[in-house]
């Protein structure tokens, strides 16, 4: 009889699709078309970057719609378009907290609190990178160079995730061996960066923002429709395991990374992770460096654009992952090494067929490419502008420009090699560590310092040193199951805040006239 039974009837699940090249061809066509449009856009819209400065951040003439879409694209990465579905697929509803539900709460403060300030630092003081702005704010070369190093360190981790996202997609649509999938993903990234996309033109980023938003939104609607709507989704999940419908999964360990799903401390931490990381991500904040001065209407437009890309599509991602669990049951976890991260691509194949899958695949690549290219640009600029140029000011700008291009290659190869040697298990968790570190440090060093006059270079340096050490050591403890990942977030965030304020208060602030220049003529 059909009584409620703890032994799951395997017939309720859809069989896991066997990837074949028919989807791969569509994907190649879709991605090829996107790359072509990106390249054309770059070609027609980009004024030739004549100087080293213009190469790094453009000409301060980009409008609100493009800046808004571009911010959406750099904020949302392979984590948002693939990893988030992997989380809710793996643990059920309790994964939604870490699976992107705080996206808007995270990204809006970045826009509201740092946008205008960064634009002002770029226009008034000629800041070309985020570290550059910090160097100006603290009048300190040490802060500038150290912040550049810290950003590079965490962004390499984050970049690994983008390569894995690309490779996972290739597996889903071709079924090729893991190594080939990674090589294909790497190849596309390299093509994109070499043929002009590498300047991370706001126009290409904006197109990618729009694509990823549309792709995820449509997949979410199709997925929910496929499982039969909201209540059917819950019923199917409960049929496999009632714990999948819990908002807090108390059956999972409250230490290690599962703390983010199993305890109130962990769930509260997810809010803070998102809240701090959007502002803490230099590749997000860097979007405002090339922006023109906004008026009231512009401001409303930019907010709307960010909301459209980073809001509804990402809220639906959590649901897509759940739908995938309802459809496939736990079977995707057996597909190594991709596992839960296959949740969305396989569901798009089963529920949406070729058109939806192609759209979604293009969306994931748009997200991964935009974040990766923006990050690689930030990292390369960090080395040349914030480390080499700061300490060797006499080096010619031509040499610096060439060096920046060399470092673009280097910063693509490092994460590629890493993904090749040791691909991370669950994308979202791996990238979570980078977010905890970057967010905890730069929410203070960037956002707070733009408003708090008393902040000093010593406070910022202490904050960066503490943040890196605490995240590194803490992540080892989380992996060993000694503490929870949510607890680590609080250790990093509260600790960074404490040393930042303490370090600032025990040292002398910048001279009055300097502060007046930085804070006096506020354009708000």
């Amino acid at each position, binding site marked *: 009889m059909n009584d409620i039974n703890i032994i799951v009837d395997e017939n309720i699940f859809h069989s896991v699709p066997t990837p074949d090249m028919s989807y791969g061809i569509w994907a190649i066509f879709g991605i090829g078309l996107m790359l072509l449009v990106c390249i054309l856009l770059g070609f027609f819209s980009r004024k030739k970057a004549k100087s080293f400065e213009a190469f790094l951040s453009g000409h301060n003439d980009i409008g609100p719609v493009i800046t808004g879409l571009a911010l959406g694209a750099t904020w949302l990465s392979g984590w948002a378009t693939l990893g988030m579905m992997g989380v809710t697929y793996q643990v059920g509803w309790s994964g939604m907290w870490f699976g992107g539900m705080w996206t808007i*709460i995270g990204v809006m*403060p970045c826009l509201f609190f740092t946008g205008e300030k960064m634009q002002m630092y770029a226009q008034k003081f000629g800041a070309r990178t985020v570290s550059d702005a910090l160097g100006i704010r603290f009048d300190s070369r040490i802060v500038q160079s150290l912040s550049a190093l810290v950003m590079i360190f965490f962004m390499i981790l984050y970049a690994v995730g983008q390569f894995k996202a690309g490779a996972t997609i290739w597996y889903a649509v071709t079924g090729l061996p893991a190594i080939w999938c990674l090589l294909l993903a790497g190849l596309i990234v390299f093509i994109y960066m070499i043929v002009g996309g590498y300047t991370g033109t706001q126009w290409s980023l904006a197109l990618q923002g729009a694509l990823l938003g549309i792709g995820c939104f449509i997949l979410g609607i199709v997925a929910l429709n496929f499982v039969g709507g909201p209540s059917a989704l819950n019923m199917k999940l409960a049929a496999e395991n009632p714990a999948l419908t819990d908002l807090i999964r108390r059956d999972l360990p409250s230490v290690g990374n599962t703390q983010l799903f199993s305890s109130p401390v962990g769930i509260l931490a997810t809010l803070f992770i998102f809240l701090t990381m959007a502002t803490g991500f230099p590749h997000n904040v860097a979007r405002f460096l090339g922006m023109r001065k906004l008026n*009231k209407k512009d401001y409303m437009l930019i907010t709307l654009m960010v909301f459209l890309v980073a809001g509804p599509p990402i809220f639906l991602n959590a649901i897509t992952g759940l739908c995938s669990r309802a459809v496939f049951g736990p079977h995707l976890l057996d597909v190594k090494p991709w596992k839960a991260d296959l949740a969305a691509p396989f569901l798009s194949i089963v529920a949406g067929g070729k058109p939806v899958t192609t759209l979604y695949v293009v969306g994931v690549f748009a997200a991964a490419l935009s974040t990766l290219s923006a990050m690689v640009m930030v990292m390369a600029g960090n080395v040349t502008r914030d480390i080499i140029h700061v300490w060797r000011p006499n080096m010619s700008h031509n040499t610096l420009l060439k060096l920046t291009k060399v470092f673009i290659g280097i910063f693509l190869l490092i994460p590629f090699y890493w993904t090749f040697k040791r691909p991370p298990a669950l994308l979202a968790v791996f990238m979570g560590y980078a977010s905890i570190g970057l967010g905890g440090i730069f929410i203070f060093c960037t956002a707070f310092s733009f408003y708090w006059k008393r902040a000093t270079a010593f406070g910022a340096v202490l904050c960066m040193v503490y943040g890196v050490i605490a995240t590194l050591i803490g992540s080892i403890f989380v992996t060993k199951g000694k503490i929870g990942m949510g607890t680590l977030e609080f250790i990093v965030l509260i600790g960074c805040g404490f040393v930042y304020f303490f370090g600032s208060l025990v040292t002398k602030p910048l001279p009055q006239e300097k502060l007046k220049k930085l804070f006096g003529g506020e354009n*708000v």
Partner: protein
Amino acid sequence: MNNWSAWWLIVIASTLFTVLGLFLRIRGWKNE
């Protein structure tokens, strides 16, 4: 709480957060 209610609550709260933030941000904005 029902999981769908929680989901809707966050969606609505995020929208209000955006609108309120925007309102506060552009209040008294000097158009130059």
